[in-house]
């Protein structure tokens, strides 16, 4: 489609315009809300939201919060992935360990981990580490299940071939299981990064002194709906940037993977 980006931008503009118009005082009939300003009070006004965002960025107050959220996301992602990779490889390669821990893994995955956030705050304080811990519990299981599956599904022919080429057990792990498992980590990258982000923001929201989640929480306390929406918009944009970065990284790291659109064959 031509001008795809333009059309996408137009849709966004249209939504904001509609929102702005509907929030005008007096437009919603008085039998719904007696107070004409009620619509703006409940739903905010895009113009004010954008102004709040502009103030954040022009005055530079947002950067320290974004930086904290980014740090928490990155740490949760890296730690969760490494743990998931290690445990996934271990359980995938050891049937005994896998049989032994299977019910625990299932139980821990089924547990709603967000409720752990207050406990993490007691353990790790109100700084970034309680948020990282929450993110790790979310990321770990995604990566773990992918790696576990990946190890089980390593092609037996590739394994046998590598054995015939003279690889010992350690080399099999390094040259076959690890790359194969890593590719499964990357296939879950989008979900994992998203979860790390959710962990960071939810953690901040529940108790912190910095971060975008904290800004939202503060604004909510003051019934400042415009700032709440501003925070949500900034978070969304930030998530989009993260997702874009992940796509770029994926393309670089998984060159060996066939894609459907790829017709380059000789």
């Amino acid at each position: 489609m031509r001008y795809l980006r333009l059309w996408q931008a137009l849709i966004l503009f249209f939504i904001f315009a509609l929102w702005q118009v509907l929030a005008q005082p007096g437009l919603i009939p008085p039998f719904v809300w007696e107070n004409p300003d009620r619509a703006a009070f409940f739903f905010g006004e895009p113009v004010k939201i954008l102004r709040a965002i502009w103030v954040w960025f022009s005055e530079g107050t947002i950067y320290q919060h974004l930086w904290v959220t980014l740090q928490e996301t990155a740490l949760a992602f890296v730690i969760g992935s490494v743990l998931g990779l290690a445990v996934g490889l271990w359980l995938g390669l050891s049937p005994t360990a896998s049989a032994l821990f299977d019910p625990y893994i299932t139980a821990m995955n089924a547990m709603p981990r967000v409720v752990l956030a207050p406990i993490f705050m007691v353990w790790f304080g109100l700084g970034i580490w309680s948020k990282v811990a929450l993110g790790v519990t979310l990321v770990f299981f995604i990566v773990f299940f992918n790696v576990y599956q990946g190890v089980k599904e390593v092609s037996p022919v590739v394994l046998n071939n590598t054995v015939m080429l003279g690889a010992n057990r350690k080399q099999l792990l390094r040259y076959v299981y690890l790359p194969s498992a890593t590719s499964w980590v990357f296939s879950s990258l989008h979900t994992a990064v998203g979860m790390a982000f959710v962990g960071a923001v939810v953690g901040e929201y529940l108790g912190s002194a910095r971060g975008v989640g904290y800004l939202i929480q503060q604004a909510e306390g003051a019934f400042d709906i415009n700032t709440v929406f501003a925070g949500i918009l900034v978070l969304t944009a930030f998530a989009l940037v993260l997702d874009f970065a992940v796509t770029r990284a994926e393309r670089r790291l998984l060159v060996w993977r066939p894609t459907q659109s790829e017709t380059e064959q000789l």
Partner: protein
Amino acid sequence: MSPAVEFDQITCTFAGTRGSYTAVQDVTLAIGAGEFVSVVGPTGCGKSTLLNVAAGLLKPSSGTLRVFGEPLAGVNRKAGYMFQSEALMPWRNALANVTAGLEFRHVDAREAKRRGEEWLERVGLAGFGDRYPHQLSGGMRKRTALAQMLILDPQILLMDEPFSALDIQTRQLMENELLELWSANRKSVIFITHDLEEAIALSDRVVVLSAGPATRPIGEFPIDLPRPRDVSEIRLSPRFVELHDRIWHSMKEEVLKGYAQTKNRVAA
């Protein structure tokens, strides 16, 4: 001199959900040093089982496998194995796949790269070293697998229908290349195929297996066609046709038996 590979009363039985299944029974077969032996038989008769035993990937239920006179324990380090299906590591490019075996043996990286490129050139893939397997055609992947095996200079080559997935032209090309590489440096070859023509064109000797279960060799035919051979031309020689006729007659019954069994299995 003791044979390169010697099957001595090898039997392989697999435990299954519907009772045990004997894939091969009492197979006694010797492959001399430098000899090219093809093993033909109907589909599903346990040809690959024999090869896995020779490779040391599968321990026989009974019987002994000897490699140059020594009973085999563990993986056969003197053998290279070329698999029927895709066996390249998809996350390594062609060059890295070819040099993998050298890497496992801790050969110096630069030396490995030099030899890898030399082998890629020898199998006609010069300049394709940086391609990943999915970027190569089926024939090119087979060449890469061939180079991957031959770079380690194994004394025994085990080949499990390596060219069966290729189209007929590519296949004859690969067969000629294999013969050329083999004649330059004679190794013992066990070449499994279901294609009798391919077997005769390549080998010194053709071994015919019975239909499964409990497969065993039912005939051996020395192939006295002159070398060097061109696989597409040799098919037209009168001696080839004569050999083909003789072996085919001895095989026919088994092929029909195997076919009937497969059909029954599908029906059941």
